[in-house]
């Protein structure tokens, strides 16, 4: 008998059918294939999904490509809109706004980052605002959109985009995809998880009504409940609430009152912030807050007061705790989605973390004999990802001038992780932004938030001085003009959707 096939995992069980469950099922069915593996998914309609999670970052395009999903088709089916970035309002101080765009600022000059030159020009009073050099930001401000175009040297070829979609429809869409490729879905509520006595591995899931689902490998996509990784395996949780004190959200969609804009909005309130995600058919909203600073009723009141259209569904309160699972892969179980930990949706990173979890899992996919061999690497990389995103999120709270509430007073003066502290220090003293390894957020993202929230560099790189100021000013002006031209020629977001991916 063939050793390989004997050792091979035969049955993969995915517990949970939210965004994480169905993304995982879809990817496994495509990449591993359901002829090689039995892929099962269990979900409970009674419990339902978390129902939020509608904004993404550009990396999701890669996911679509691997799955060979036609982007326009997927957008039509999920009422999706395009997203060029996030507008942050009232974060530095009330009344102020900036956009964190998907794309760079300007272009490198002599292999030095654009922003170094910008810092110099700014100090001479000759620079325009940072955002005038970002095509994604300018397009967002003008409600324009086009997919990046293949034009040598043009800013039009140099930005990213993501989607804003209906989470429920997205899971449905992926479910159709996965089932068509052989994933077997079982409807039912998991009542218990059975472990193997010797190994402590998960053996099976029992459903209410008596059915038992056995498997070789389990993926916990049960959301915040974390039934397998925590409930059964007691893996443990590292709490980050002291850095990111928000622990609740109240969500409510509303009617759309204008054509959807190509960006998400995050407006800071006194004890948290509110998202606004425009879709083709409606607008998603939610207020993320720290319950120790604001009651649920008050938070709901703030949300409703700040909706721009009539509310469509009753506001729903969701509780969470920010932090991560001590291990993401434990025994024969990997936690993907909210079961793996929670980072608030300020930078729309959760779906991305699902995606990277899936690709890491596929890369390190185990066999029966070597069930946990990939776990260490998997866990190490996931911790890194989580922590770098965490630090980026903390920056938004830490870098503020707001003194109008206890919440902001706490955030402004809290201790922050060392990595973030160093990063801020380096920028302030030298204008340099150091990117560690494959850290998700790159230079332009840090720059956008630093500058947007009042962290200013005191110096710039001395090499910048080799270019005469007048020439520099000229180049910047020309670049700004090019961006304006590009914006002139971009279709409106509405028009672009109508031409490409209007939902039927």
């Amino acid at each position, binding site marked *: 008998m063939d050793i390989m096939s004997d050792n091979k995992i035969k049955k993969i069980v995915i517990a949970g059918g939210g965004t994480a469950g169905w993304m995982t099922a879809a990817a496994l069915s495509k990449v591993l294939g359901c002829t090689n593996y039995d892929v099962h998914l269990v979900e409970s309609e009674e419990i339902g999904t978390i129902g939020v999670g509608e904004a993404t970052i550009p990396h999701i395009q890669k996911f679509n490509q691997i799955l060979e999903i036609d982007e326009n088709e997927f957008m039509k089916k999920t009422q999706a809109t395009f997203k060029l970035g996030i507008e942050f309002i009232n974060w530095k101080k009330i009344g102020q706004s900036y956009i964190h765009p998907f794309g760079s600022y300007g272009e490198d000059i002599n292999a030095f980052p654009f922003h170094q030159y910008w810092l110099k020009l700014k100090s001479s009073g000759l620079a325009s605002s940072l955002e005038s050099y970002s095509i994604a930001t300018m397009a967002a401000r003008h409600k324009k959109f086009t997919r990046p175009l293949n034009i040598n040297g*043009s800013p039009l070829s140099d930005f990213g985009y993501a989607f804003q979609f209906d989470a429920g429809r997205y899971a449905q869409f992926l479910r159709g995809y996965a089932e068509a490729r052989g994933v077997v879905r079982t409807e039912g509520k998991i009542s218990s998880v059975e472990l193997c006595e010797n190994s402590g591995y998960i053996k099976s899931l029992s459903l209410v009504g008596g059915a038992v689902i056995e498997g070789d490998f389990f993926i916990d996509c049960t959301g915040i409940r974390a039934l397998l990784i925590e409930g059964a395996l007691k893996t443990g949780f590292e709490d980050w609430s002291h850095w990111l004190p928000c622990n609740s959200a109240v969500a409510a969609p509303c009617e759309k009152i204008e054509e959807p804009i190509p960006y998400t909005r995050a407006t800071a309130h006194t004890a948290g912030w509110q998202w606004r995600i425009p879709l083709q058919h409606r607008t998603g909203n939610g207020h993320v807050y720290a319950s120790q600073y604001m009651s649920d009723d008050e938070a709901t009141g703030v949300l409703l007061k700040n909706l721009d259209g009539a509310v469509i569904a009753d506001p729903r309160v969701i509780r969470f705790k920010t932090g991560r699972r001590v291990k993401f892969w434990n025994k024969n179980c990997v936690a993907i989605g909210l079961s793996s930990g929670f980072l608030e949706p300020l930078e729309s990173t959760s779906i991305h973390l699902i995606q990277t979890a899936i690709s890491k899992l596929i890369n390190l996919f185990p066999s029966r004999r070597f069930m946990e061999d990939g776990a260490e690497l998997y866990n190490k990389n996931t911790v890194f990802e989580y922590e770098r995103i965490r630090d980026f999120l903390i920056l938004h709270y830490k870098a503020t001038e707001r003194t109008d509430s206890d919440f902001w007073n706490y955030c402004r003066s809290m201790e922050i992780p060392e990595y973030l502290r160093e990063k801020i220090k380096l920028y302030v003293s030298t204008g340099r932004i150091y990117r560690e390894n494959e850290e998700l957020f790159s230079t332009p993202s840090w720059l956008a938030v630093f500058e947007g929230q009042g962290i200013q560099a005191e110096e710039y790189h001395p090499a910048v001085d080799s270019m005469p100021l007048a020439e520099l000013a000229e180049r910047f002006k020309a*670049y700004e003009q090019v961006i304006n031209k590009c914006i002139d020629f971009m279709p409106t977001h509405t028009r672009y959707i109508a031409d490409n991916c209007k939902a039927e």
Partner: protein
Amino acid sequence: MTSHRLVIYGGGVSAWVTAAALTNAYTVDVLKVVLVNPGVNTKEPSIADSGFTSLRRFHASMRISERELMGQTSATFKLGALYKNWSKPGQNFIHGFSNYGSMLDGIDFHQYAVLLHQCGDTTAFDAYSLAAQAAAAKKFGFLNKDLVEQGFNLDYSLHVDLSQYSQLMQTCAVRKHLEVICGQLDHLNLDADGNIKALVLTSGEVVGGDFFFDCSGSDSVLVRQLPGDKFLKWDKELPVNKQIDLVGGAAKSGLCTDLSVCRGGWLKSIPLKDKTLYSLTYNSEYESDDAAMTAAINFAGVELSDAVQPLTIVPGRRERFWVKNCLAIGAAAGNFTELTFSYLHHVQSGVLRFIDLYSAAGVNDFSAQQYNQLTSDEYARVLDYQQLNLLLGAAESSGFWSCTSKIPRTAELQRKLSLFKERGKLAFEEYETWMPGSWVSLLLGNNYWPEKHDVLLNGCNLELVVKRLGQMRMVNSNLAAQLSDEDEILGKYAILK
């Protein structure tokens, strides 16, 4: 009707081309053509010519087999001019004969290029020219009918050896009953009206005729002696006065005439099958003869030789070309500079215009007036074109190039430039040697971009435009790759005697 007698004076290219064209156009019983060859060096280009596409039409009208002609004149196929380091240091641009891009939705292609440029596009403009792509890949070929019907073209001309070309023209003319007399002019016999009755040669021989062609080169031996003749100098318009011609070995590729700027002026090379003509045209105010010689020798990669001396050139034209019953052709009529210039075109266009206007009834003032007017216009536009080349040569700013922005321009050139700068439209005059497309590609390829795009493009689908332009570039490079290697096709095509 009595047969007319036309007398050509000269023994260089312009004389033989004139003789061949005239004998080809008229049978001997209508017009008798006589050529008086003084047997001295004529002051006119004599080494190599970088033709325009009109050259091939001329051959076709003469029923000369291009394949034989190419074999006999050490010719290479010419796809365009390569501006090396011309408008921007380090930038090469091939100005091909064939079209750049194709119209989209009834709007000129270049408007789209302008639009994308304004959006930061840095794609080289010659990516849209099949000729440029082919030349860069050292490829050449004849497009099949299908491709031509789809709107592709690969127009070409030739680089030819001028002394061999003269030989060939001589053979053609003699075959068509040209009478050749050897002898130098002593003086002219004029009638009371100032018309030439005859050339009196030093031998005492009198060569009478009804009409005379001055093909004596820039000495303009005949017209100079006619009443009211005047030479208009272009010393401000084309401020160069020296030229060094050197002949070196065969170039790597024959498909382009190369142009590049240098301190004193510019360098040009015309690649023939077996050799290359290198010339440096300069202004001695900005470069000494010695320095120019060193530059030319470095450029040509040849040994220093005492035999080569800088030639003095005097750009300018006769005020009138056709005076009484005498017509100046070629260098005798006007001297342009060796910058995007074809001497053969210059000569042929003069003769063909004569044939067009010459009435069998003989000479009349109307023909002369017409001829002079049209030719003046033509020259003015050629001058514009040469000046534009100088204006675009921004890769160098010292020496000669420090004066190019101050060159006086014609109102027509000024209008062309401002209209183009403002709106990307090309003002096209009558009797232009270069078609609008050529002007446009010369401008854009050398980074002279309009400030605004055509308003007709407002609201166009940018994504689609980018896609279609990308397709155009791809088709060009694919097509170019499928053509034959230059050497191979030249070897097969040109018939050697």
